[in-house]
Each structure stands twice: as C-alpha cells, then as structure tokens.
C-alpha cells in the first residue's frame, strides 16, 4: 500500500477487528496487524483459513455470526486496497514519532525467518487483549498443567485436547466455556474448582439482571456441563499438582472464607491434565512505554485509563477491549466501535458522524457491560489467603526458577514491589519477563495496590539479526500480506 495510512490497529481480536472495520467504513486507510495466523484473537481463535476444513472448531465458538460479518467486511476493504492486513506480525515496540506513531514489527509469516519492519500512522489503536492471570501452587510447573486459556487455545486453534481426564481450577466465568469445550470433545472433566462463593454474584445483582445475554451464554455452558455430568465445585481450589514427567493427580481443597485451604479436607483426584486461571491480566506492553496513564480496575489490575471515546491520555493513542479493563468479547466489540468513532472524529474524516441514537446505544451497552464486568470481578477475587498453599520450594518464577522462599526472603530484605523482587531474585527477568509471575509476586509483596506490570520496552522477543537488518538497510513497509486471512 503506497498511500499513507491513517490508523494502525494492533490486535485483531473482537475489539481490533471491529475498530478496523468501523474506521475503514468511515473512509480511513488502516493497517491491522496481529501475531496470530488468523483473524479473531483469543476469543475467536481459529486455525488459519486454508486449514479450517481439516480442523473444525465452529461448535466451540460464540458469536460466530458477528465474526464472519467482520471478516467479510475486512476482506472487502482489503480488496479495495484500503486495508493492509498483517497477520503473523509481532509488534515489539510502539513509539511516538513526530505527530504520529511508529510501530516496530517483526514479520514472521515465513517463521522462523524474521524480518523487521516499521508501520507508521498519525493514530494508533492498541487492542492487544489479555492473558490468563496465574497464581502458583506446588506442582503448577509440571507438564500437563496448562493455563485454562492454553487448553482452550489448543482446542480452538488446533482441535487438540491436552488430556483425557482434566481438572480445571481458579476463578471466573471463563472456566465454564473451557470445561464445556473440553467436554464437547469427549474429555472427562473431573472437576471445575471455582474459588468464589456461588452466592457472591448476588451481592451485585443489578448488573447481572441488566445483561440477559450473559445469562444466556452462561446457561448454554451450564447445560453442556450438566449433559456431560461435569461437577462444578464452588469454594474449592486446586492447591497442588503431583507427578513426575507429567501431572498424575491434583489435590483439591475446600476454601475457608479468606481463601485458605480448610485443613484436613484435601481430596486427591487422578488426572492427566490441568487447566488453571484466575481471571486475566491485560496486555499493556505497548501502552506503558508510550506513557499513557493507568487506572485501577476492580479485578486488581492496573488498566489503561480512557475517556468515553476510548482515548488514552496520550494524544492520538486509543485502546479498546481488555487493555482498559477485562470485560469480555461483547464489551470489546462495543469499545472497538467507540474507539474507531473517536479516531474518525479526531482525524476530521469526511464520513458523517454516527447517528446520536447509535452512539447512545453503544455507550449504554458499554456502561451496562462494564458494570457487569465489575460485578464479575468483585464476585471472583483472587483469594486473599492464597499464599497459604505455597511452600518455600514452590517455583514462582517459572523462567528463572525462583521459589516462593526466595521471594519471601527478598521481601524480608525490604523489597516492597515486584520490580525490587526482580532485581534481588531474578523473578521476572527470564523469557516471559514476568508476565506469568508478575501478578503473583505483586500479591506476595504489595497487596492492596493494583498490579502495574513492569515497563517492557521490548514487547516481544526479536532476533538481533532482524534488528541489525533495520540498521543496515532501513526497510519501511515490507510487503503486505498476500495470503488470504
């Protein structure tokens, strides 16, 4: 695409797809990039388009009608030459440059070969979503223990179940679709351990009653679980995993009101795979170094602060979806639309502004669903006393193999946040840069404050060779994607 681009959208999940489609419909030229090989992000994760016949996953999805409509719209804009779609492109840095932004990417369509490129536009929309929030427990690093999202991704993206007898644990409504998906593929789900109290939702009934669509989705999962006789155990946690070369059993414990395991009540259940997740941590890596202000979300995460039009505090920088508060795909779609409307308005695009009625409807849907997300977050907190199930030997930082005992020692030495613990113990200095252990180390040192991830100037690893190429022969816009989406 030779003409200048008006907007770069990073992330092609529900928020990014909607934002790109809306901005394109308003007449803008857009680059949409995603690290995945298909449109959809995590929620609508699909195998690459050419392989969908071989790996059928439609029955695992919700809202596919909307997904397909977005795919069609984006394909049309692409044929018209106004959308530059970059799949398998990983953004490792976004920086301000003049009046706009430069997004530094590595093109991995021909992986493992990497080519560095730079995408520039006056406006940038970050819709990078979230990943599972983890709490360590003894044995959580055994093979066969996965994040709940990891089980889901293998299922949706590759049609593969990671085990035949699976226990799920953690907290939050996401455990239910994972259980339902596994059960639908013939996996024996031996327990869904939900740490929260089943009546916790009732403390905030208003937002629940005002979101009937969420009930319908929940009811369909419940029906699937009932059909497959999957036991859901409230106020219960997976407090340990056992095994050697692979997990062979989990220990389940009912939880006291503070979240500590009730002594003497543990049950051992044999499994060959485990899925765990304690809500989500938003993916803020591109946003934090750009200097956008963060705010505290009800789930304990710091999230990007946005105005009613999804503008961050950095001019020209917008964000939508989980990055400004974990709330699910339906909310992300609405936020994506709001963000694109703001981009259109701020760019002085010729397109007529959306009708007031449409704008009001989306804004009220966003308000309603944010209230729902907040109620969910308050009903599914990280249990206060979860560190009770750690031993001193439990690995907290999986990459650098830093134990809970080492973290406690650092804390005793005066480290009072995860950055200090990192400097003293190497927890968070490894390959994942604290994405897995950061929230847990934060809980162990600085409870009560929102978790603000470390600033990561490099958002995803990139080879020095690819970077050197950038210095040796500056290639601005590498070839756009020619394959189908």
């Amino acid at each position, binding site marked *: 695409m030779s003409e200048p681009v008006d907007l770069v959208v990073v992330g092609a999940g529900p928020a990014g797809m909607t934002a790109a489609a809306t901005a394109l419909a308003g007449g803008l030229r857009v680059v949409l990039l995603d690290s995945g090989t298909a449109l959809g992000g995590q929620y609508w994760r699909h195998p690459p388009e050419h392989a969908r016949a071989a790996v059928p996953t439609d029955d695992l999805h919700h809202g596919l009608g909307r997904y397909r409509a977005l795919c069609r719209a984006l394909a049309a804009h692409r044929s018209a030459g106004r959308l530059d779609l970059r799949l398998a492109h990983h953004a490792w840095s976004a920086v301000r440059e003049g009046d706009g932004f430069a997004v530094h990417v590595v093109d991995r369509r021909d992986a493992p070969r990497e080519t560095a490129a730079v995408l520039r536009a006056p406006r940038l929309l970050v819709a990078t979503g979230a990943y599972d929030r983890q709490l360590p427990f003894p044995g959580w690093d055994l093979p066969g223990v996965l994040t709940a*999202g*990891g*089980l889901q991704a293998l299922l949706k*993206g*590759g*049609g593969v179940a990671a085990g035949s007898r699976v226990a799920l644990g953690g907290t939050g409504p996401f455990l239910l679709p994972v259980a339902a998906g596994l059960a639908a593929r013939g996996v024996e789900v031996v327990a869904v351990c939900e740490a929260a109290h089943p009546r916790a939702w009732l403390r905030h009934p208003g937002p629940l009653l005002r979101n009937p669509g969420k009930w319908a989705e929940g009811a369909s999962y419940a029906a699937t679980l009932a059909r497959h006789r999957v036991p859901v155990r409230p106020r219960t946690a997976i407090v340990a995993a056992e095994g050697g070369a692979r997990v062979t059993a989990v220990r389940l414990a009912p939880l006291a009101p503070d979240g500590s395991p009730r002594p003497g009540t543990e049950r051992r259940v044999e499994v060959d795979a485990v899925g765990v997740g304690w809500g989500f941590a938003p993916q803020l890596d591109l946003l934090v170094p750009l200097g956008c202000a963060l705010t505290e979300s009800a789930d304990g995460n710091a999230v990007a602060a946005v105005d009613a039009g999804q503008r961050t505090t950095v001019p020209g920088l917008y964000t939508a979806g989980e990055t400004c508060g974990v709330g699910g795909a339906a909310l992300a779609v609405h936020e994506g639309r709001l963000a694109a409307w703001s981009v259109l308005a701020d760019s002085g695009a010729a397109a007529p502004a959306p009708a007031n009625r449409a704008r009001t409807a989306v804004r009220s849907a966003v308000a309603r669903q944010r209230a729902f997300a907040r109620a969910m977050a308050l009903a599914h907190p990280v249990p206060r006393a979860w560190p009770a199930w750690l031993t001193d030997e439990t690995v907290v930082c*999986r990459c650098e193999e830093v134990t809970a005992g080492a973290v406690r020692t650092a804390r005793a030495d005066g480290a009072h946040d995860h950055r200090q613990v990192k400097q003293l113990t190497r927890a968070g200095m490894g390959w994942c840069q604290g994405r897995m252990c950061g929230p847990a180390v934060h809980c162990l040192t600085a409870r009560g404050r929102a978790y603000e991830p470390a600033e990561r100037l490099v958002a995803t690893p990139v080879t020095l060779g690819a970077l050197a190429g950038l210095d040796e022969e500056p290639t601005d816009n590498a070839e756009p994607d020619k394959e189908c989406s």
Partner: protein
Amino acid sequence: MSEIVVDGDPLPFVEGQTVAAALVAAGRVAWRTTRVGRRPRGVFCGIGVCFDCLVTVDGARGQRACLLPARPGMTVTTREDDDE
C-alpha cells in the same frame, strides 16, 4: 497427513496446527528442560506469553512452538543446545 521431524523422528500433523498442537496431539506435553533445575516443560499458556514451549526450528533457536504453524518437513529440535 503431513509430517514434521522432531528430534529426528517424524511427527504427523493436521494442516493448520501449530508445532505445539502437533506435539500435544501425539501425547507429548513436555519437550524441554529448564536451565537450572532441569525440570521438564512443554506447553503452558498456549498463546505465546509464557515461553515454556521453546524449540529450535530449522536451526533457529527460541521459537515458541505454540505460535509456530507446522509445515511439512520442518525440523524441530527440543533438546537444550549446550554447545552451539
């Protein structure tokens, strides 16, 4: 069905699967050992965030198996390369 080569042995995969999905489909959930404790590791987050599933592919080290689409003939090495 196509094949990749993992540590010298052929491994079948379905077009569209990642290297990790192909390994898991074959019943393997661990294929790497950690540097310090020599602990077995494989797929954990499944979405490219945790870096537990690293493999060497066609000589390129540090590849996340969960992100990398399997391609026929691809050579995957899982053991730690101590003497590169």
